[in-house]
């Protein structure tokens, strides 16, 4: 792998140049407690330290709502509405989110590719950024705290800049023109600093241990009382799934227009926490109660993604942090599996 270094000052310049390649998105502080990926207007607004964004990065490749087709009923024809091939650059993606994107790929690209997602993904550049965990993070036990694929560049924080790992050909091409100008060689001190950073980071995770057997306990304790207790609190609002970087359910609807013959076939994010998610004709519902739906998410998120060899949940902590009812996903999982301690 290729490693280069960039100073903090030059990073701003680099971001400035990235803006010329396409639309640059990076974490911004949007309120007291929340961050979100926003289009970068002034590079000084970019946050290099943040825990998690309120909206997951998947939305840049798989938007909340998009028009798949337009149609005309007189011709009985669907007209494809593929995204434009404008470049989208995501700066500051944490490793959990990068793995989450790869779980998305496994569904949307690996098998019967979804042309909309694929096209955006091909036109996307992902630049990772190191982070320090808070008490909501548990990517370490999900084994995704350090990614080795799925990014074009990955920025590791150093006291005086960033150590950059180059992940793909696209990444090389981003570095090449500025080699020597913005990027310099990595010296042993930098490696030492990265080492220290990683050490500090590892020690900061509040949850430790091995979670590999979790999904078996999930199944062996299907009727754990936790489900009843916690689903009582649940508001069924879908925040957990909508903020999750690896949730992917969508719904499709035809929206006709007022001329009585044309319209749009749109898709938009759905959530398994909504009643209609499992509803079929004749009002039969395969996930009838709030508890059923609550349970469904716990099973789904802990199921296994063979492409990343991890669970679909990457431990980013969003579903807990953004739950208005304050339901603690990590804690509840630990309760089911019988894992001890480490929760604050």
């Amino acid at each position: 792998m290729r490693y280069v270094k960039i100073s903090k000052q030059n990073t701003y310049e680099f971001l400035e140049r990235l803006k010329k390649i396409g639309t640059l998105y990076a974490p911004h502080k949007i309120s007291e407690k929340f961050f979100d990926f926003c289009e970068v207007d002034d590079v000084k607004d970019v946050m290099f330290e943040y825990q998690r964004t309120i909206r997951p990065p998947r939305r840049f490749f798989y938007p909340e709502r998009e028009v798949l087709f337009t149609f005309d009923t007189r011709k009985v024809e669907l007209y494809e509405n593929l995204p434009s091939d404008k470049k989208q650059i995501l700066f500051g993606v944490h490793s959990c989110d990068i793995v989450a994107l790869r779980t998305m790929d496994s569904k949307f690209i690996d098998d019967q590719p979804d042309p909309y997602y694929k096209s955006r993904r091909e036109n996307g550049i992902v630049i990772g950024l190191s982070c320090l965990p808070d008490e909501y993070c548990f990517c370490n036990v999900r084994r995704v705290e350090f990614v080795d694929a799925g990014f074009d560049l990955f920025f590791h924080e150093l006291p005086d800049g960033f150590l950059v790992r180059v992940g793909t050909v696209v990444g090389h091409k981003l570095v090449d023109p500025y080699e020597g100008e913005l990027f310099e060689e990595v010296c042993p001190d930098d490696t030492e600093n990265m080492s220290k950073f990683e050490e500090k980071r590892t020690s900061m995770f509040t949850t430790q241990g091995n979670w590999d057997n979790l999904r078996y306990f999930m199944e062996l304790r299907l009727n754990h009382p936790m489900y009843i207790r916690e689903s009582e609190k649940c508001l069924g609002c879908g925040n957990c799934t909508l903020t999750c970087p690896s949730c992917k359910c969508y719904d499709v609807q035809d929206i006709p227009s007022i001329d009585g013959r044309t319209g749009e076939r749109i898709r938009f994010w759905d959530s398994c926490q909504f009643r209609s998610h499992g509803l079929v004709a004749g009002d039969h519902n395969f996930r009838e109660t709030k508890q059923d739906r609550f349970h469904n998410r716990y099973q789904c998120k802990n199921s296994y993604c063979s492409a990343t060899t991890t669970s679909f949940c990457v431990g980013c902590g969003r579903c807990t942090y953004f739950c208005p009812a304050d339901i603690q996903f990590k804690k509840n999982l630990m309760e089911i599996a019988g894992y001890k301690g480490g929760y604050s």
Partner: protein
Amino acid sequence: MSQSKTQDEGKENIYDTAKCRLLRKYKLSESDKLFLFRFEDPEIATNWRFKPGQFVEVSLLGLGEVPISICSSARRMGFFELCIRNAGRVTSQIHKLQPGSLVGIRGPYGNGFPMEQFYNRDLLLVAAGLGMAPLRSVFLYAIDNRWLFGNITIINSAKFGNELLFKRELEAMKDIATAEDISIVQTATRDPDFKGLHGRATSHFEKVNVDPKNCAVAMCGPPAMYKGMFEELIARGYDPRYIFVTLERRMKCGVGKCGHCNIGTATSWKYACKDGPVFDYYAITSIPGLI
């Protein structure tokens, strides 16, 4: 199979549909109609293949898409039939279509029944209500390839006699066959006035003319039926490796992406549209939540 107007060569949009013309519609019962379709594009018409138990997504522009099992013989190339119940927004409008209308079709989707595994075996088909739709396709497959299968028994059940799908077709079949190798059992579960058999499918096993040890079973009906049938079949010595059922779930995409049809638990997470809708006995009994 999809074709698209604006796309480049070789690129395909899995959500695009192919135009199909409605050629005929027949009334099967108060709420069910049988629709005969043909692909408009001759190339698709000749190359389109499906397996019994698979389904298509029928698209009515401005209303949406619905998954519907194909219920015709896999042999009739370019033509296929759908048996559709008027159940809501989309299906009610499909019922109003007149011959000559065009709809969009994509598919076929799902795994379908593993017909090759059924070769040289007797067949027991158990349908309840709309379940007869996919099983008709299995049945016609066996008729079309009669030499590959042993005895066939169909148990077709419905709540009321007039809701028995393909009732007359099946009766006619029996008359033609006269031979003992095809048995048709049609029963109404809640219809005292029905002039025929009464009671649930499980109560008519004496009329089943297959060898349990060498028989493949295909079932389609409500989950509640499966539980009872499983007990009955195992007790009678049917080989569990050859018991298959098809499941219904909400579906939007048909290709394992939209997530609505997800079933199972953390260790075995399935999509009914891709990993199913046909599941075998062991899958059903080992994965909680399938039925």
